[in-house]
């Protein structure tokens, strides 16, 4: 398994295609917690699919004002078809060209298979990784770890910025 970026690390910035004609940058979401979910590929079987699960848990993520982004090496057209088929209500980013470059920055690329790890990152309002987790590739990590991390995030206004962001739990 790859060594994914640990809590306390500044989240590497990126700009990726989110639809065939739109891009999304991590910096667009500054000021809000972000959940980054790297996963190997679109089109896993429905009932155990990680993205389908996050789709259902979305209202809970939103309670923490968090934005969820799925990332795989699938192309934007593939993502578009997958989003449509599964009625996903959050963006999927295409780490397609150069392939896996963003995953690589997060330590979440499997060179041997050419796909992303199942790696999760919760990024705080200041762009610092607050929690990260990497699962075995065949294991859908669920949403409990993400929700626990979001719950532990300092509340908006509770912190005066980066000064207190060094107290992240692992």
């Amino acid at each position: 398994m790859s060594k994914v970026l640990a809590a306390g690390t500044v989240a590497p910035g990126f700009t990726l295609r989110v639809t065939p004609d739109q891009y999304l940058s991590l910096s667009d979401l500054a000021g809000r917690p972000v959940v980054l979910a790297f996963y190997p590929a679109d089109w896993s079987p429905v009932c155990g699919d990680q993205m389908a699960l996050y789709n259902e848990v979305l209202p809970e993520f939103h309670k923490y004002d968090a934005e969820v982004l799925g990332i795989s090496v699938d192309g934007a057209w593939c993502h578009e078809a997958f989003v449509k088929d599964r009625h996903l209500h959050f963006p999927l980013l295409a780490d397609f060209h150069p392939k896996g470059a963003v995953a690589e920055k997060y330590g979440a690329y499997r060179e041997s298979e050419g796909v992303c790890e199942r790696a999760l990152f919760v990024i705080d309002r200041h762009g610092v990784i607050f929690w990260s987790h990497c699962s075995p590739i065949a294991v859908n990590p669920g949403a409990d770890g993400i929700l626990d991390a979001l719950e532990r995030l300092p509340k908006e206004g509770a912190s005066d910025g980066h000064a207190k962001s060094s107290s992240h739990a692992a």
Partner: protein
Amino acid sequence: MGTLKVPVTQHDHIKGPADAPVTLVEYGDYECPGCGAAYPIVNLVVEHFGRRLRFVFRNFPLTQVHPNAEPAAESAEFAGAHGRFWEMHDGIYENQDRLSPPLLFALARALGLSELELRNALASEKYAPKVKSDFLSGVRSGVNGTPTFFINGHQHEGSYALEDLVLAIELQLHAKAAL
């Protein structure tokens, strides 16, 4: 792996004695084909262990991919409010291949329940909070898809094949007997 974070209470749908040495909890979706396939197996497991097993069903509908899962879950809860949960639960799984609102209404009528009352309950989402609370208890316990089983609070990592479930439950029975 996961442990059951929300203990079984009287608000759950329970089959079997409260003092059974083993409790099997299933998180399921009425439209999930895997849950449909597991349904007859769970019945065999329940029959096999008799009074040594307590079975609990909790809702985990994937509503965006299974459009009938939420109304089915709410219909089962509606029947449950009238003391007929398991009949509705069985009726839905036994007819999963034609799951639709008309089926849910027909099942309610067959149980002597009011179709109008069910329609109103679905329209007003009367039982949605119960379904949601089941779902969230599953999310918090690490449920990542359906069906997911917990045996005495520990997530069952094996398959839901009859022999796997029976073996896992027997291990718990032996562990209890050894105490």
